[in-house]
């Protein structure tokens, strides 16, 4: 039995090792700070637990912090899904004479390892509840901890992104309860219920299955992204992380070197988002003949394929402007540099970051 666990553990480590260089392939220079970034994200999240635990936190803050925390855990598990479930070695593992219970217990253990602090921290906090009356009066937090325990299941079990739990439900709760007196226990219970429903029934995918047939090229890429969302999610995750770090750095540095910091963050984000073009290039390379046989023009395909990168860019621009007060002049640099990076990935492959970096350097000099 221990041998089985050792195999699962080795597969998990091997898959992570495979994953990190593939990220590093896109962001060679960022590889060295990847580990720091992960730990930084965990620490940022842990700080937010104090806000979540406070029953007097406002509705708006509660939704933002709880959603942010849950999303972080969701992405953390999702990125490691292949490694946790050993998906690439399914047939081999199924052939082994190991009971289902033991397999599940191994998966649970690896999930705990993968989720580590963000998964366990709410449970640890619960241990410090002094007595039952406090536990009951602060019931919103145990319910939140319960929903956090459901997130890994949601992340591992479902193929599609949980739009209902992370986008639609928070928006409805926010709009529905805005201005009205709200109860943190009620909101957390409602949210937990939605997460459980989405985990077991995936109502949105039931609707999607009844959608119109495949008619347009853009739908192909959408299906591909939803089937293998790791590459998009990893960029969303790191963009969120970079924005959080920018917020922290801005707070610490004040206004003294603001423009330079802003350009630095824009540069990192543009290269991170623009490197999404590697996915597109890989797709073109793998299906070159099939794509050449399609009747739509290649420039239309190129334009459609950069939409995910453009969406992440636009959302980042809005966040940077509204939340961090980045100046519009500097924000305009982000879509421009993302486009330059996308073009450079197509033209120069591994040396893609040289031209965007020079542009950023020039812009910084002009500042």
């Amino acid at each position: 039995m221990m041998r089985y666990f050792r195999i699962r553990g080795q597969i998990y480590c091997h898959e992570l090792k495979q994953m990190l260089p593939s990220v590093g392939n896109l962001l060679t220079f960022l590889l060295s700070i990847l580990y720091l970034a992960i730990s930084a994200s965990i620490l940022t999240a842990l700080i937010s637990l104090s806000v979540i635990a406070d029953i007097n936190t406002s509705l708006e803050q509660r939704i933002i912090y709880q959603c942010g925390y849950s999303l972080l855990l969701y992405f953390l598990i999702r990125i490691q899904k292949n490694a946790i479930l050993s998906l690439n070695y399914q047939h081999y593992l199924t052939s082994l004479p190991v009971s289902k219970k033991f397999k599940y217990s191994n998966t649970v253990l690896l999930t705990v390892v993968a989720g580590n602090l963000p998964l366990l921290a709410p449970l640890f906090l619960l241990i410090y509840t002094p007595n039952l009356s406090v536990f009951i009066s602060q019931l919103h937090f145990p319910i939140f901890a319960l929903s956090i325990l459901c997130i890994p299941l949601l992340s591992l079990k479902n193929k599609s992104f949980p739009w209902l739990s992370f986008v639609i439900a928070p928006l409805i709760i926010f709009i529905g309860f805005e201005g009205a007196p709200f109860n943190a226990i009620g909101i957390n219970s409602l949210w937990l219920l939605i997460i459980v429903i989405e985990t077991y029934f995936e109502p949105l995918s039931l609707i999607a299955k009844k959608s119109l047939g495949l008619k347009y090229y853009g739908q192909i890429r959408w299906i591909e992204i939803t089937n293998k969302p790791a590459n998009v999610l990893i960029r969303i995750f790191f963009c969120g992380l970079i924005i959080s770090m920018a917020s922290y750095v801005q707070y610490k540095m004040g206004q003294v070197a603001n423009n330079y910091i802003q350009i630095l963050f824009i540069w990192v984000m543009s290269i991170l988002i623009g490197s999404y073009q590697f996915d597109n290039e890989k797709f073109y390379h793998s299906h070159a003949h099939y794509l050449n046989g399609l009747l739509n023009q290649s420039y239309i395909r190129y334009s459609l394929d950069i939409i995910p990168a453009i969406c992440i860019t636009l959302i980042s621009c809005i966040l940077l402007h509204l939340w961090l007060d980045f100046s519009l002049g500097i924000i305009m640099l982000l879509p421009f540099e993302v486009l330059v990076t996308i073009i450079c990935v197509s033209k120069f492959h591994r040396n893609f970051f040289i031209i965007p970096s020079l542009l950023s350097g020039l812009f910084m000099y002009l500042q």
Partner: protein
Amino acid sequence: MLILKDVSKLYQKNVVLNGVSYHFSDKKYCIVGPNGIGKTTVLMLAAGLESLSGGEVTFNDKSVFLTETKRYLGISSDKINLPGFLTAQQLLELHCSQHRCPFPTILINHLGFSAQLATQVSSLSLGNLKKVSLLLAVAHNPLCLLLDEPTTGLDSNSREWLLSFLNQYHGQVIVTSHEKVFTESAYYEHVDLTQLNKCNDIT
């Protein structure tokens, strides 16, 4: 009419085809030649799926790289890597939407493929993958069918149906095959690529 005019193709620095010229003016052709001579490459170039290193390929006097020409061509080849994450149904739906043709239900039934429509392409067996590839080639009733080893992997019923379908096909059919049903058939004019390909002269 499909015309290859002084066609050359290099992969990196390896010459695969050199100075191949041919007018496919009749109804049915079978391109023959030993393995590696470039039969599949000829089909890929004829369908406009690969760039030419030299020469010209036209169908009805228009370049095969034009979208309007591609509507008249249908190709099936194992070399075409179909998106494995789509189901067969989705692939066919997209194809029919692009070519504005009806969903090929009758052809699907003839090939006994109905049960596999909901299966992802990556999970299909070799034979079923060949069936999808054939369905994509014939669904829009092209004027010119380019089929690379069309019977490989097919079960006997599907094979029989395909052969009779090709014999009665209204448009031009160009196949590459080593099978006697094509190489010894009176229906098909044989094109020996060894003689057309001047690449052999270089080597």
